[in-house]
């Protein structure tokens, strides 16, 4: 006990001494004199920051006395800096959504497939990025032209392949920026690439949810190149790259052309429709439908994971929507972010209420889908509507997603383990259409190169709604056809679906060679009669006791 007291006393003395030491220094220091800037004299410390950053920090020939031109140079540079920083940070937020998707999908699937589901969501980021770097970005943005907010070398993105129909130019794809090389090696273009890449990745990861628990990893691997190099870039070019959907206004007088601010259709519908095609080609999971065609519930194994993932997505969505200004100097970002937030809330509330009133309990998984549905729906109109419209759009999506899930599951008999087709496909379409109804004309002057703000039907521009219908129809037809054909070709060559024994055992060991939860399985050396795993020497897990026949 004495030793403890002695130690405490020593510690107190040392601490007091250390705390007073700076005081000794400060008492001796003189405040900084009017030292000439060139001299290496000491400078006053500035704890409040109020004196940091002055005229002396404007680069000038005569230090501390910049000319008007020198000041303007700095202003211009700073403007682009703010925009570039904003775009990059927003892009980083959207990248983090990848974790959100991984958690949502894995939480909604069964434990025996958790490693496989996680791995698809993990690798799609890497693979799709590669395909996009090789050619996807060039196809999408190669002809978009100068982007005012980022400036720099974006003006070199000036090669768009067009065809002429009805006497008008229809932009189809770009051709500058392959491997980000040549004129592509530019600070602003790299920034644009990063931002666009994470959006593409969002679209690429959505189908893995609809196709989970029975998709062969080798087929998925090839798919990730396909969506990042072909289907996504083409549709994105038509809407965001200066292609024909964006010029419907210039060419045919349809509003500002097809408008999709942050990607309800470019990202989410592409993902949802691709997922629909894939889920149809794959077929439903074993045991999903009874002999009478009635769907059986296959509950997810980890609701906390799924709901936490949903919140991560909601967080990343601030980057997704508000970042799509590409400009921190465009102060609509406050409205965009708030509209996004409100739609997420109403989506969750109305989905929960719908399930509560219809089925007696507020289903957590549908509530999560509801929040995401609201977010997907507001993604297109977020910059153009007021907060009441945002709330309504989100709430409608919350109910729509429930109807869609039931329709796809019970009527179309397509098995979608996580509701991806409904959340992203159905509500993505609703999002772009809602823009055509509720855009209120307070923003968007110059959008798609046309003067005037963006208005929907209820605010005086019916032609915008026409454009807003052409867009999702094009998406549905093109993306579904291209994806369906691709998946069919993949199925005919390497096969899309795992063998039934593999599906029943769980994909983790046969496909990944690793269990997500090894401590909850009793590994044995016995293969499950005729299992398709190629590594015959690897230990294989017994079907876990609590799984039952499914």
């Amino acid at each position, binding site marked *: 006990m004495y030793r403890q007291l002695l130690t405490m006393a020593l510690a107190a003395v040392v601490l007091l001494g250390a705390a007073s030491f700076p005081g000794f220094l400060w008492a001796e220091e003189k405040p900084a004199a009017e030292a000439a800037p060139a001299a290496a004299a000491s400078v006053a410390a500035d704890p409040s920051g109020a004196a940091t950053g002055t005229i002396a920090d404007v680069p000038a020939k005569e230090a501390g006395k910049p000319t008007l031109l020198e000041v303007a140079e700095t202003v211009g540079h700073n403007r682009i800096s703010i925009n570039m920083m904003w775009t990059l940070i927003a892009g980083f937020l959207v990248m983090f959504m990848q974790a959100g998707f991984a958690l949502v999908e894995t939480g909604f699937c069964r434990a025996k497939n958790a490693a496989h589901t996680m791995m698809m969501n993990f690798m799609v980021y890497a693979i799709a990025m590669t395909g996009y770097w090789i050619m996807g970005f060039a196809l999408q943005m190669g002809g978009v032209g100068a982007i005012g907010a980022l400036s720099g070398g974006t003006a070199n993105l000036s090669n768009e392949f067009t065809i002429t129909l009805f006497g008008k130019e229809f932009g189809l794809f770009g051709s500058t920026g392959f491997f980000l090389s040549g004129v592509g090696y530019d600070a602003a273009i790299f920034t644009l690439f990063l931002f666009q890449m994470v959006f593409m990745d969002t679209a690429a990861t959505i189908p893995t949810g609809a196709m989970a628990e029975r998709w062969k990893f080798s087929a998925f691997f090839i798919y990730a190149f396909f969506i990042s190099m072909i289907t996504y870039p083409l549709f994105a070019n038509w809407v965001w790259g200066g292609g024909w959907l964006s010029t419907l206004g210039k060419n045919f007088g349809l509003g500002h052309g097809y408008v999709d601010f942050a990607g309800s259709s470019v990202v989410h519908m592409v993902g949802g429709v691709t997922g629909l095609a894939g889920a149809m080609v794959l077929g439903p999971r074993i045991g999903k439908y009874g002999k009478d065609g009635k*769907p*059986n*519930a296959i*509950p997810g194994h980890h609701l906390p994971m799924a709901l936490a993932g949903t919140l991560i997505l909601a967080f990343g969505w601030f980057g997704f929507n508000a970042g799509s200004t590409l400009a921190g100097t465009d102060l609509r970002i406050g409205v965009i972010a708030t509209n996004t937030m409100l739609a997420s809330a109403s989506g969750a509330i109305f989905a929960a209420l719908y399930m509560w009133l219809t089925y007696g309990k507020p289903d957590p*998984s549908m509530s999560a889908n509801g929040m995401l549905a609201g977010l997907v729906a507001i993604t297109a109109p977020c910059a153009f509507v007021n907060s009441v419209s945002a709330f309504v759009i989100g709430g409608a999506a919350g109910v729509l997603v429930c109807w869609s899930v*039931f329709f796809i*599951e019970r009527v179309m008999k397509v098995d979608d383990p996580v509701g991806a087709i409904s959340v992203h496909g159905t509500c993505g379409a609703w999002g772009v259409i809602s823009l055509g109804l509720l855009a209120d004309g307070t923003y968007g002057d110059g959008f798609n190169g046309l003067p005037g703000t963006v208005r929907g039907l209820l605010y005086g521009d019916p032609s915008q709604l026409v454009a807003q219908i052409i867009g999702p129809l094009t998406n549905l037809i093109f993306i579904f056809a291209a994806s369906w054909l691709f998946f069919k070709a993949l199925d005919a060559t390497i096969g899309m679906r795992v063998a039934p024994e593999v599906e029943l055992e769980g994909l983790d060991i046969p496909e990944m060679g690793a269990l997500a939860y090894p401590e909850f399985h009793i590994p044995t050396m016995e293969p499950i009669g005729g299992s398709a795993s190629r590594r015959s020497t690897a230990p294989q897990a017994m079907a876990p006791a609590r799984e039952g026949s499914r």
Partner: protein
Amino acid sequence: MKKIEFIIRPHKLDDVKDALTKIGVQGMTVTEVRGFGRQRGRTELYRGSEYTISFLPKVKIEVLLSDKMADEAIKAAMEAARTGKIGDGKIAVYDLKEVLRIRTGESGEAAL
């Protein structure tokens, strides 16, 4: 010697364990099991589709006892585990032919 299995409600585990150790039971093995008797299962909804939970979670306690402790153990556990509602569980009694202690090799009552 007897082996007794108690299948009880999971939240009653601590009560039964305390009751058994109070009368002198020195060891037990516990497993998480599922089952149903007259309690039957329940129908729940997941995303609007019905699914039946036929097997309800229970806890199984196994004890190895001398004959003279068996009756006392059964009485103690029964009182501790009972709630009066359907689903309280069951007790099964087996004759134990032989028991051995791995560490020392003892057998019979000395190994209990």
